[in-house]
Protein backbone atom coordinates (compact mmCIF):
# COMPACT_ATOMS: atom_id res chain seq x y z
CA UNK A 1 0.00 0.00 0.00
CA UNK A 2 1.20 3.39 -0.95
CA UNK A 3 0.91 5.87 1.99
CA UNK A 4 -0.18 9.34 0.99
CA UNK A 5 1.45 12.46 2.32
CA UNK A 6 -1.21 14.92 3.43
CA UNK A 7 0.95 17.74 4.77
CA UNK A 8 4.49 18.45 3.72
CA UNK A 9 6.47 21.20 5.39
CA UNK A 10 9.49 22.46 3.60
CA UNK A 11 12.12 24.37 5.54
CA UNK A 12 9.63 26.20 7.83
CA UNK A 13 11.16 28.89 10.05
CA UNK A 14 9.16 31.18 12.32
CA UNK A 15 10.41 34.42 13.84
CA UNK A 16 8.71 36.48 16.55
CA UNK A 17 10.39 39.85 16.12
CA UNK A 18 14.06 39.00 16.93
CA UNK A 19 13.42 35.55 18.34
CA UNK A 20 13.62 32.55 16.02
CA UNK A 21 11.07 30.03 17.27
CA UNK A 22 11.50 27.42 14.53
CA UNK A 23 14.60 26.50 12.51
CA UNK A 24 13.81 25.09 9.07
CA UNK A 25 11.46 22.23 9.84
CA UNK A 26 10.94 19.54 7.20
CA UNK A 27 8.25 17.02 7.96
CA UNK A 28 5.97 14.72 5.94
CA UNK A 29 2.67 14.04 7.67
CA UNK A 30 0.72 11.04 6.41
CA UNK A 31 -2.95 10.94 5.68
CA UNK A 32 -5.30 9.14 8.09
CA UNK A 33 -2.60 8.79 10.71
CA UNK A 34 -2.05 10.39 14.07
CA UNK A 35 1.17 12.35 14.26
CA UNK A 36 2.28 13.42 17.74
CA UNK A 37 4.63 16.31 18.44
CA UNK A 38 6.49 16.13 21.74
CA UNK A 39 9.16 18.16 23.46
CA UNK A 40 9.70 20.42 26.47
CA UNK A 41 7.62 23.59 26.71
CA UNK A 42 8.89 26.43 24.56
CA UNK A 43 10.46 24.00 22.09
CA UNK A 44 8.36 25.25 19.17
CA UNK A 45 5.90 22.38 18.78
CA UNK A 46 2.84 24.61 19.23
CA UNK A 47 4.34 27.23 16.94
CA UNK A 48 4.81 24.54 14.32
CA UNK A 49 1.21 23.41 14.73
CA UNK A 50 -0.09 26.95 14.38
CA UNK A 51 1.90 27.55 11.24
CA UNK A 52 -0.06 24.79 9.50
CA UNK A 53 -3.36 26.72 9.67
CA UNK A 54 -1.61 30.09 9.59
CA UNK A 55 -2.83 31.04 13.05
CA UNK A 56 0.61 32.44 13.88
CA UNK A 57 -0.20 35.45 11.78
CA UNK A 58 -2.53 36.75 14.46
CA UNK A 59 0.51 37.76 16.50
CA UNK A 60 1.92 41.06 15.27
CA UNK A 61 5.55 40.89 14.20
CA UNK A 62 5.55 37.23 13.17
CA UNK A 63 7.58 36.31 10.08
CA UNK A 64 7.34 32.88 8.47
CA UNK A 65 9.81 31.48 5.93
CA UNK A 66 9.60 28.27 3.95
CA UNK A 67 6.54 26.54 2.62
CA UNK A 68 3.86 24.13 3.73
CA UNK A 69 1.87 22.07 1.25
CA UNK A 70 -1.46 20.53 2.02
CA UNK A 71 -2.17 17.94 -0.67
CA UNK A 72 -0.43 19.84 -3.40
CA UNK A 73 -1.49 23.37 -2.56
CA UNK A 74 1.04 25.72 -1.06
CA UNK A 75 -0.31 27.26 2.15
CA UNK A 76 1.85 30.36 2.06
CA UNK A 77 1.02 32.14 -1.18
CA UNK A 78 -1.06 35.09 -2.27
CA UNK A 79 -3.85 33.01 -3.73
CA UNK A 80 -4.42 31.05 -0.55
CA UNK A 81 -7.40 32.32 1.37
CA UNK A 82 -6.85 31.64 5.08
CA UNK A 83 -10.59 31.21 5.56
CA UNK A 84 -10.64 28.34 3.08
CA UNK A 85 -7.49 26.91 4.61
CA UNK A 86 -8.89 26.92 8.11
CA UNK A 87 -12.04 25.27 6.85
CA UNK A 88 -9.90 22.36 5.65
CA UNK A 89 -7.62 22.37 8.69
CA UNK A 90 -9.56 22.34 11.95
CA UNK A 91 -7.99 23.07 15.30
CA UNK A 92 -8.65 22.02 18.91
CA UNK A 93 -7.02 24.11 21.61
CA UNK A 94 -5.56 23.37 25.01
CA UNK A 95 -8.40 24.85 27.00
CA UNK A 96 -11.84 23.68 25.90
CA UNK A 97 -13.38 26.97 24.86
CA UNK A 98 -17.06 26.70 24.08
CA UNK A 99 -18.83 29.83 22.88
CA UNK A 100 -21.43 31.28 25.27
CA UNK A 101 -24.30 29.82 23.26
CA UNK A 102 -26.36 26.62 23.25
CA UNK A 103 -24.82 23.24 22.44
CA UNK A 104 -26.61 23.28 19.10
CA UNK A 105 -25.43 26.78 18.20
CA UNK A 106 -21.84 25.90 19.05
CA UNK A 107 -21.80 23.03 16.57
CA UNK A 108 -23.81 24.95 13.97
CA UNK A 109 -21.45 27.92 14.24
CA UNK A 110 -19.01 26.80 11.55
CA UNK A 111 -21.58 25.64 8.97
CA UNK A 112 -23.56 28.85 9.46
CA UNK A 113 -20.44 30.93 8.86
CA UNK A 114 -19.79 29.03 5.69
CA UNK A 115 -23.25 29.89 4.45
CA UNK A 116 -25.52 26.99 5.36
CA UNK A 117 -28.90 28.36 6.39
CA UNK A 118 -31.26 25.44 5.81
CA UNK A 119 -32.47 24.27 9.21
CA UNK A 120 -32.83 20.59 8.29
CA UNK A 121 -29.36 20.49 6.82
CA UNK A 122 -27.98 22.14 9.97
CA UNK A 123 -29.85 19.68 12.21
CA UNK A 124 -28.29 16.82 10.28
CA UNK A 125 -24.76 18.28 10.49
CA UNK A 126 -25.14 18.91 14.22
CA UNK A 127 -26.36 15.39 14.89
CA UNK A 128 -23.68 13.74 12.77
CA UNK A 129 -20.90 15.84 14.26
CA UNK A 130 -21.99 15.17 17.83
CA UNK A 131 -22.25 11.46 17.05
CA UNK A 132 -18.79 11.42 15.52
CA UNK A 133 -17.45 13.15 18.64
CA UNK A 134 -19.09 10.54 20.90
CA UNK A 135 -21.20 13.21 22.54
CA UNK A 136 -24.64 12.64 21.02
CA UNK A 137 -25.68 10.13 23.66
CA UNK A 138 -24.99 12.60 26.44
CA UNK A 139 -26.42 15.80 24.95
CA UNK A 140 -28.80 14.72 22.18
CA UNK A 141 -31.79 15.39 24.43
CA UNK A 142 -30.75 18.89 25.47
CA UNK A 143 -29.27 20.57 22.42
CA UNK A 144 -30.63 23.95 23.42
CA UNK A 145 -28.99 23.95 26.85
CA UNK A 146 -26.08 26.37 27.29
CA UNK A 147 -22.79 24.73 26.38
CA UNK A 148 -21.09 26.26 29.39
CA UNK A 149 -23.03 23.82 31.60
CA UNK A 150 -21.15 20.78 30.26
CA UNK A 151 -18.24 19.15 32.08
CA UNK A 152 -14.67 19.87 30.93
CA UNK A 153 -14.38 16.59 29.06
CA UNK A 154 -17.77 17.08 27.39
CA UNK A 155 -16.78 20.63 26.44
CA UNK A 156 -13.63 19.38 24.76
CA UNK A 157 -15.61 16.81 22.78
CA UNK A 158 -18.11 19.55 21.90
CA UNK A 159 -15.22 21.62 20.57
CA UNK A 160 -14.18 18.62 18.46
CA UNK A 161 -17.76 18.23 17.19
CA UNK A 162 -17.68 21.93 16.31
CA UNK A 163 -14.52 21.34 14.28
CA UNK A 164 -15.98 18.23 12.59
CA UNK A 165 -19.07 20.19 11.54
CA UNK A 166 -16.94 22.23 9.16
CA UNK A 167 -15.84 18.98 7.46
CA UNK A 168 -12.09 19.48 7.66
CA UNK A 169 -9.56 17.02 6.30
CA UNK A 170 -6.94 17.70 8.92
CA UNK A 171 -7.42 18.26 12.66
CA UNK A 172 -4.72 19.98 14.68
CA UNK A 173 -4.83 19.44 18.43
CA UNK A 174 -2.82 21.57 20.82
CA UNK A 175 -2.50 19.65 24.12
CA UNK A 176 -6.22 18.86 24.04
CA UNK A 177 -6.17 16.72 27.19
CA UNK A 178 -4.05 18.91 29.43
CA UNK A 179 -7.05 20.43 31.20
CA UNK A 180 -8.96 17.14 31.54
CA UNK A 181 -9.26 14.52 34.25
CA UNK A 182 -7.99 10.95 33.56
CA UNK A 183 -11.37 9.50 32.64
CA UNK A 184 -12.15 12.31 30.20
CA UNK A 185 -8.65 11.94 28.80
CA UNK A 186 -9.21 8.24 28.16
CA UNK A 187 -12.44 9.00 26.32
CA UNK A 188 -10.72 11.66 24.27
CA UNK A 189 -7.91 9.28 23.29
CA UNK A 190 -10.46 6.69 22.27
CA UNK A 191 -12.18 9.32 20.14
CA UNK A 192 -8.90 10.27 18.45
CA UNK A 193 -8.40 6.63 17.55
CA UNK A 194 -11.80 6.56 15.84
CA UNK A 195 -11.34 9.89 14.08
CA UNK A 196 -8.15 8.91 12.30
CA UNK A 197 -10.15 6.68 9.96
CA UNK A 198 -11.48 9.79 8.29
CA UNK A 199 -9.10 12.55 9.27
CA UNK A 200 -5.44 13.33 9.41
CA UNK A 201 -4.57 14.27 12.97
CA UNK A 202 -1.59 16.22 14.28
CA UNK A 203 -1.46 16.44 18.06
CA UNK A 204 0.87 18.37 20.36
CA UNK A 205 1.21 16.76 23.76
CA UNK A 206 3.49 17.11 26.74
CA UNK A 207 2.51 13.64 27.86
CA UNK A 208 4.85 11.03 26.35
CA UNK A 209 2.71 8.07 27.40
CA UNK A 210 -0.17 9.67 25.57
CA UNK A 211 1.94 10.14 22.45
CA UNK A 212 3.02 6.51 22.65
CA UNK A 213 -0.57 5.30 23.12
CA UNK A 214 -2.34 7.17 20.37
CA UNK A 215 0.09 8.15 17.63
CA UNK A 216 1.47 6.42 14.58
CA UNK A 217 4.33 8.86 14.07
CA UNK A 218 6.11 11.07 16.56
CA UNK A 219 8.28 14.13 16.15
CA UNK A 220 10.56 15.35 18.93
CA UNK A 221 11.19 19.11 19.06
CA UNK A 222 13.95 20.83 21.00
CA UNK A 223 14.86 24.53 20.92
CA UNK A 224 12.95 25.11 17.71
CA UNK A 225 14.46 22.17 15.86
CA UNK A 226 12.97 18.87 14.83
CA UNK A 227 15.48 16.52 16.43
CA UNK A 228 13.90 13.27 15.37
CA UNK A 229 10.85 12.21 13.44
CA UNK A 230 9.89 8.59 12.89
CA UNK A 231 7.29 5.91 13.55
CA UNK A 232 6.18 6.10 17.16
CA UNK A 233 7.31 2.59 18.07
CA UNK A 234 10.72 3.22 16.67
CA UNK A 235 11.18 6.60 18.34
CA UNK A 236 10.25 5.40 21.77
CA UNK A 237 11.91 1.98 21.64
CA UNK A 238 14.93 2.78 19.58
CA UNK A 239 15.70 6.51 19.42
CA UNK A 240 18.47 7.44 17.03
CA UNK A 241 19.43 10.72 18.67
CA UNK A 242 20.97 10.97 22.13
CA UNK A 243 18.81 14.05 22.95
CA UNK A 244 15.63 12.12 22.14
CA UNK A 245 16.71 9.34 24.41
CA UNK A 246 17.52 11.78 27.20
CA UNK A 247 14.09 13.34 26.85
CA UNK A 248 12.00 10.17 26.73
CA UNK A 249 13.90 8.63 29.60
CA UNK A 250 13.13 11.76 31.60
CA UNK A 251 16.59 13.20 31.89
CA UNK A 252 15.34 16.71 31.16
CA UNK A 253 12.11 18.60 30.50
Amino acid at each position, binding site marked *: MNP*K*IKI*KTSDISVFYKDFQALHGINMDIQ*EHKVTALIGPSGCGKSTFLRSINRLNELIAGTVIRGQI*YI*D*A*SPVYCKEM*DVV*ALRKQVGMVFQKPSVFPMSIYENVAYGPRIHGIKNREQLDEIVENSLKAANLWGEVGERLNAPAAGLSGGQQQRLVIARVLAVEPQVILMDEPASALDPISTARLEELIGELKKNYTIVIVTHNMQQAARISDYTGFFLNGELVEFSATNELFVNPRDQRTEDYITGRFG
Partner: protein
Amino acid sequence: MNNRTQEITVGTMDAAKLLAIRSFTRKNSTLGFNRDKLVETILMLNAAIFILAIAAISLFILIRGLPLIFKVGITDFLLQLEWNPTAGSFGIGTMLAGTLAVTLTALLWAVPMGLATSIFMVELAPPRIGTLMGSLVELLAGIPSVVYGFFGLIVIIPFIRNYLGGSGLSVLAGAIVLGVMILPTIINISRDAIAAVPLDYKVGSLALGASHYQSIRRVILPAARSGIITAIILGMGRAIGETMAVVMVTGNSTIIPHSILSPTRTMTSNIVLEMGYASGDHQAALFATGVVLFIFIVILNLVVNLTLKAGKNYGAN
Protein backbone atom coordinates in the same frame (compact mmCIF):
# COMPACT_ATOMS: atom_id res chain seq x y z
CA MET B 1 7.22 32.94 -0.41
CA ASN B 2 8.68 30.29 -2.62
CA ASN B 3 6.37 27.90 -4.35
CA ARG B 4 8.62 24.93 -4.91
CA THR B 5 5.78 22.72 -6.08
CA GLN B 6 8.09 20.34 -7.93
CA GLU B 7 9.31 18.98 -4.60
CA ILE B 8 6.02 17.59 -3.51
CA THR B 9 5.25 13.96 -3.51
CA VAL B 10 1.63 13.80 -4.40
CA GLY B 11 0.06 10.58 -3.24
CA THR B 12 -3.36 9.66 -4.49
CA MET B 13 -4.19 13.25 -5.33
CA ASP B 14 -5.98 13.63 -8.64
CA ALA B 15 -5.86 16.72 -10.77
CA ALA B 16 -9.58 17.38 -10.61
CA LYS B 17 -9.61 17.62 -6.85
CA LEU B 18 -6.59 19.88 -6.88
CA LEU B 19 -8.33 22.18 -9.33
CA ALA B 20 -11.46 22.20 -7.20
CA ILE B 21 -9.50 23.32 -4.14
CA ARG B 22 -7.71 25.98 -6.11
CA SER B 23 -10.82 27.48 -7.68
CA PHE B 24 -12.68 27.38 -4.38
CA THR B 25 -9.83 29.24 -2.78
CA ARG B 26 -9.84 31.98 -5.39
CA LYS B 27 -13.58 32.50 -5.31
CA ASN B 28 -13.61 32.93 -1.58
CA SER B 29 -10.65 35.22 -1.46
CA THR B 30 -12.43 37.93 -3.43
CA LEU B 31 -15.54 37.55 -1.31
CA GLY B 32 -14.04 37.15 2.13
CA PHE B 33 -10.74 38.93 2.23
CA ASN B 34 -11.79 42.20 0.61
CA ARG B 35 -14.88 42.51 2.74
CA ASP B 36 -12.78 42.28 5.88
CA LYS B 37 -10.44 44.97 4.57
CA LEU B 38 -13.39 47.21 3.74
CA VAL B 39 -14.88 46.75 7.20
CA GLU B 40 -11.53 47.57 8.78
CA THR B 41 -11.27 50.80 6.80
CA ILE B 42 -14.78 51.85 7.79
CA LEU B 43 -14.12 51.12 11.47
CA MET B 44 -10.85 53.03 11.29
CA LEU B 45 -12.63 56.08 9.88
CA ASN B 46 -15.06 55.85 12.81
CA ALA B 47 -12.20 55.78 15.28
CA ALA B 48 -10.77 58.91 13.67
CA ILE B 49 -13.77 60.85 15.05
CA PHE B 50 -11.86 61.42 18.29
CA ILE B 51 -8.93 63.04 16.53
CA LEU B 52 -11.33 65.12 14.45
CA ALA B 53 -13.31 66.16 17.51
CA ILE B 54 -10.27 67.40 19.40
CA ALA B 55 -8.96 69.14 16.28
CA ALA B 56 -12.31 70.83 15.59
CA ILE B 57 -12.84 71.91 19.20
CA SER B 58 -9.33 73.37 19.48
CA LEU B 59 -9.61 75.09 16.12
CA PHE B 60 -12.96 76.77 16.63
CA ILE B 61 -12.35 77.87 20.22
CA LEU B 62 -8.92 79.25 19.32
CA ILE B 63 -10.15 81.04 16.19
CA ARG B 64 -12.88 82.79 18.15
CA GLY B 65 -10.82 83.53 21.25
CA LEU B 66 -7.17 84.10 20.32
CA PRO B 67 -7.54 87.34 18.30
CA LEU B 68 -9.01 89.10 21.31
CA ILE B 69 -6.29 87.82 23.62
CA PHE B 70 -3.65 89.23 21.26
CA LYS B 71 -5.58 92.47 20.88
CA VAL B 72 -5.70 92.98 24.64
CA GLY B 73 -2.27 91.45 25.23
CA ILE B 74 -1.69 88.10 26.92
CA THR B 75 -0.53 89.44 30.28
CA ASP B 76 -3.20 92.15 30.42
CA PHE B 77 -5.90 89.65 29.57
CA LEU B 78 -4.76 87.19 32.22
CA LEU B 79 -3.82 89.59 34.99
CA GLN B 80 -5.96 92.72 34.59
CA LEU B 81 -8.56 92.88 37.33
CA GLU B 82 -10.99 95.05 35.42
CA TRP B 83 -13.77 93.16 33.64
CA ASN B 84 -16.16 95.60 32.08
CA PRO B 85 -16.89 94.22 28.64
CA THR B 86 -19.40 96.90 27.61
CA ALA B 87 -16.75 99.54 28.33
CA GLY B 88 -14.06 97.57 26.54
CA SER B 89 -11.97 96.34 29.47
CA PHE B 90 -11.29 92.65 29.33
CA GLY B 91 -9.18 91.32 32.20
CA ILE B 92 -9.91 87.92 33.70
CA GLY B 93 -7.50 88.26 36.64
CA THR B 94 -10.30 88.11 39.18
CA MET B 95 -11.71 84.97 37.60
CA LEU B 96 -8.35 83.24 37.47
CA ALA B 97 -8.07 84.03 41.18
CA GLY B 98 -11.63 82.82 41.75
CA THR B 99 -11.08 79.54 39.93
CA LEU B 100 -7.85 78.99 41.83
CA ALA B 101 -9.38 79.83 45.21
CA VAL B 102 -12.40 77.60 44.79
CA THR B 103 -10.43 74.71 43.28
CA LEU B 104 -7.67 74.69 45.88
CA THR B 105 -10.08 74.99 48.80
CA ALA B 106 -12.11 72.11 47.41
CA LEU B 107 -8.98 69.96 46.96
CA LEU B 108 -7.87 70.83 50.48
CA TRP B 109 -10.65 68.80 52.03
CA ALA B 110 -11.71 66.46 49.23
CA VAL B 111 -8.26 64.90 48.63
CA PRO B 112 -7.67 63.65 52.21
CA MET B 113 -11.30 62.62 52.51
CA GLY B 114 -11.31 60.80 49.18
CA LEU B 115 -7.98 59.12 49.81
CA ALA B 116 -9.08 57.96 53.26
CA THR B 117 -12.29 56.58 51.78
CA SER B 118 -10.46 54.65 49.08
CA ILE B 119 -8.07 53.17 51.66
CA PHE B 120 -11.11 52.28 53.73
CA MET B 121 -12.82 50.59 50.78
CA VAL B 122 -9.84 48.47 49.73
CA GLU B 123 -8.00 47.76 52.97
CA LEU B 124 -10.31 48.14 55.95
CA ALA B 125 -13.94 47.59 55.08
CA PRO B 126 -15.47 44.11 54.91
CA PRO B 127 -15.81 43.25 51.18
CA ARG B 128 -19.58 43.72 51.17
CA ILE B 129 -19.33 47.17 52.71
CA GLY B 130 -16.59 48.05 50.22
CA THR B 131 -18.78 47.04 47.29
CA LEU B 132 -21.74 48.94 48.72
CA MET B 133 -19.59 52.06 49.15
CA GLY B 134 -18.54 51.60 45.52
CA SER B 135 -22.12 51.79 44.27
CA LEU B 136 -22.90 54.77 46.52
CA VAL B 137 -19.88 56.60 45.13
CA GLU B 138 -21.11 55.78 41.61
CA LEU B 139 -24.44 57.36 42.51
CA LEU B 140 -22.64 60.40 43.90
CA ALA B 141 -20.86 60.68 40.56
CA GLY B 142 -24.11 60.35 38.64
CA ILE B 143 -25.99 63.20 40.31
CA PRO B 144 -25.97 66.17 37.91
CA SER B 145 -24.03 69.29 38.85
CA VAL B 146 -27.12 71.47 38.66
CA VAL B 147 -28.68 69.38 41.46
CA TYR B 148 -25.57 69.88 43.60
CA GLY B 149 -25.73 73.59 42.86
CA PHE B 150 -29.36 73.69 43.82
CA PHE B 151 -28.70 71.87 47.09
CA GLY B 152 -25.86 74.31 47.83
CA LEU B 153 -28.11 77.25 47.12
CA ILE B 154 -30.89 76.01 49.37
CA VAL B 155 -28.96 74.40 52.23
CA ILE B 156 -25.30 75.38 52.34
CA ILE B 157 -25.65 79.09 51.63
CA PRO B 158 -28.19 79.80 54.39
CA PHE B 159 -26.04 77.73 56.72
CA ILE B 160 -22.92 79.79 56.00
CA ARG B 161 -24.92 83.03 56.19
CA ASN B 162 -26.39 82.13 59.57
CA TYR B 163 -23.35 80.63 61.26
CA LEU B 164 -20.28 82.15 59.61
CA GLY B 165 -21.56 85.48 58.33
CA GLY B 166 -21.60 87.24 54.99
CA SER B 167 -24.15 86.57 52.30
CA GLY B 168 -23.30 82.90 52.16
CA LEU B 169 -22.53 83.10 48.43
CA SER B 170 -18.81 82.47 48.73
CA VAL B 171 -15.60 80.65 47.90
CA LEU B 172 -16.39 78.32 50.79
CA ALA B 173 -19.82 77.39 49.43
CA GLY B 174 -18.26 76.69 46.04
CA ALA B 175 -15.49 74.61 47.61
CA ILE B 176 -17.92 72.51 49.64
CA VAL B 177 -20.12 71.73 46.65
CA LEU B 178 -17.17 71.19 44.31
CA GLY B 179 -15.43 68.96 46.83
CA VAL B 180 -18.41 66.62 46.97
CA MET B 181 -18.53 66.56 43.19
CA ILE B 182 -14.87 65.62 42.74
CA LEU B 183 -14.90 63.02 45.53
CA PRO B 184 -16.01 60.22 43.16
CA THR B 185 -13.17 61.00 40.72
CA ILE B 186 -10.58 60.95 43.51
CA ILE B 187 -12.03 57.88 45.22
CA ASN B 188 -12.46 55.76 42.08
CA ILE B 189 -9.01 56.35 40.64
CA SER B 190 -7.05 56.06 43.88
CA ARG B 191 -9.07 53.01 44.89
CA ASP B 192 -8.13 51.28 41.64
CA ALA B 193 -4.49 52.24 42.18
CA ILE B 194 -4.46 50.91 45.73
CA ALA B 195 -6.25 47.72 44.73
CA ALA B 196 -3.68 47.21 41.96
CA VAL B 197 -0.76 47.02 44.39
CA PRO B 198 0.40 43.39 44.35
CA LEU B 199 -0.63 41.44 47.43
CA ASP B 200 2.99 40.28 47.83
CA TYR B 201 4.05 43.77 48.88
CA LYS B 202 1.58 43.81 51.71
CA VAL B 203 2.24 40.24 52.77
CA GLY B 204 5.97 40.92 52.66
CA SER B 205 5.59 43.93 54.89
CA LEU B 206 3.29 42.18 57.35
CA ALA B 207 5.73 39.26 57.48
CA LEU B 208 8.42 41.68 58.62
CA GLY B 209 6.30 42.49 61.64
CA ALA B 210 4.82 45.75 60.38
CA SER B 211 1.28 46.48 61.48
CA HIS B 212 -1.51 46.87 58.96
CA TYR B 213 -1.38 50.68 59.14
CA GLN B 214 2.38 50.76 58.86
CA SER B 215 2.10 48.59 55.76
CA ILE B 216 -0.50 50.91 54.27
CA ARG B 217 1.59 54.00 54.94
CA ARG B 218 5.03 52.67 54.08
CA VAL B 219 4.34 50.09 51.36
CA ILE B 220 0.91 50.36 49.79
CA LEU B 221 0.53 54.13 49.43
CA PRO B 222 4.03 54.63 47.99
CA ALA B 223 3.42 51.82 45.50
CA ALA B 224 0.11 53.41 44.46
CA ARG B 225 1.63 56.89 44.30
CA SER B 226 1.35 57.63 40.59
CA GLY B 227 -2.29 56.48 40.62
CA ILE B 228 -3.05 58.74 43.56
CA ILE B 229 -1.40 61.72 41.85
CA THR B 230 -3.46 60.93 38.76
CA ALA B 231 -6.58 60.99 40.94
CA ILE B 232 -5.69 64.38 42.37
CA ILE B 233 -4.88 65.93 39.00
CA LEU B 234 -8.04 64.62 37.36
CA GLY B 235 -10.06 65.79 40.36
CA MET B 236 -8.45 69.19 39.93
CA GLY B 237 -9.34 69.22 36.24
CA ARG B 238 -12.91 68.38 37.07
CA ALA B 239 -13.03 71.19 39.65
CA ILE B 240 -11.55 73.79 37.30
CA GLY B 241 -14.00 72.90 34.55
CA GLU B 242 -17.15 72.59 36.65
CA THR B 243 -19.71 75.24 35.84
CA MET B 244 -23.31 74.95 36.93
CA ALA B 245 -22.83 74.12 40.59
CA VAL B 246 -20.27 76.89 41.03
CA VAL B 247 -22.28 79.54 39.27
CA MET B 248 -25.20 78.88 41.61
CA VAL B 249 -23.32 79.25 44.90
CA THR B 250 -20.36 81.63 44.55
CA GLY B 251 -22.11 84.97 44.03
CA ASN B 252 -20.22 85.73 40.82
CA SER B 253 -18.81 89.16 41.65
CA THR B 254 -15.67 90.07 39.75
CA ILE B 255 -13.45 90.79 42.71
CA ILE B 256 -10.35 89.13 44.12
CA PRO B 257 -11.60 86.96 46.98
CA HIS B 258 -9.96 88.17 50.20
CA SER B 259 -11.34 85.42 52.42
CA ILE B 260 -13.15 82.14 51.96
CA LEU B 261 -16.37 83.92 52.87
CA SER B 262 -16.15 86.50 50.09
CA PRO B 263 -18.02 85.96 46.84
CA THR B 264 -16.09 85.21 43.67
CA ARG B 265 -16.49 84.40 39.99
CA THR B 266 -14.77 81.52 38.19
CA MET B 267 -13.83 81.40 34.50
CA THR B 268 -16.54 78.87 33.76
CA SER B 269 -19.19 80.97 35.50
CA ASN B 270 -18.12 83.97 33.48
CA ILE B 271 -18.84 82.14 30.24
CA VAL B 272 -22.22 80.71 31.15
CA LEU B 273 -23.45 83.93 32.81
CA GLU B 274 -22.74 86.27 29.92
CA MET B 275 -22.87 84.11 26.80
CA GLY B 276 -26.62 84.58 26.45
CA TYR B 277 -26.42 88.27 25.65
CA ALA B 278 -22.82 88.89 24.61
CA SER B 279 -21.85 89.96 21.11
CA GLY B 280 -18.83 91.30 19.25
CA ASP B 281 -15.68 91.72 21.33
CA HIS B 282 -17.58 90.76 24.47
CA GLN B 283 -18.45 87.37 23.00
CA ALA B 284 -14.87 86.98 21.76
CA ALA B 285 -13.67 87.71 25.31
CA LEU B 286 -15.84 84.87 26.62
CA PHE B 287 -14.31 82.53 24.06
CA ALA B 288 -10.92 83.85 25.14
CA THR B 289 -11.81 82.83 28.69
CA GLY B 290 -12.66 79.43 27.24
CA VAL B 291 -9.24 79.29 25.54
CA VAL B 292 -7.47 79.78 28.89
CA LEU B 293 -9.67 77.14 30.52
CA PHE B 294 -9.16 74.75 27.62
CA ILE B 295 -5.37 75.09 27.76
CA PHE B 296 -5.40 74.45 31.51
CA ILE B 297 -7.45 71.29 31.11
CA VAL B 298 -5.53 69.93 28.14
CA ILE B 299 -2.22 70.39 29.98
CA LEU B 300 -3.56 68.57 33.05
CA ASN B 301 -4.84 65.73 30.89
CA LEU B 302 -1.65 65.42 28.92
CA VAL B 303 0.38 65.27 32.13
CA VAL B 304 -1.78 62.39 33.26
CA ASN B 305 -1.93 60.52 29.96
CA LEU B 306 1.63 60.95 28.78
CA THR B 307 3.55 60.63 32.03
CA LEU B 308 1.59 59.17 34.93
CA LYS B 309 -0.45 56.65 33.03
CA ALA B 310 2.22 55.65 30.52
CA GLY B 311 2.17 51.88 30.47
CA LYS B 312 -0.33 51.64 33.28
CA ASN B 313 -4.06 51.29 33.29
CA TYR B 314 -6.13 52.33 36.24
CA GLY B 315 -9.34 50.95 34.83
CA ALA B 316 -12.41 52.98 33.99
CA ASN B 317 -12.23 56.68 34.48
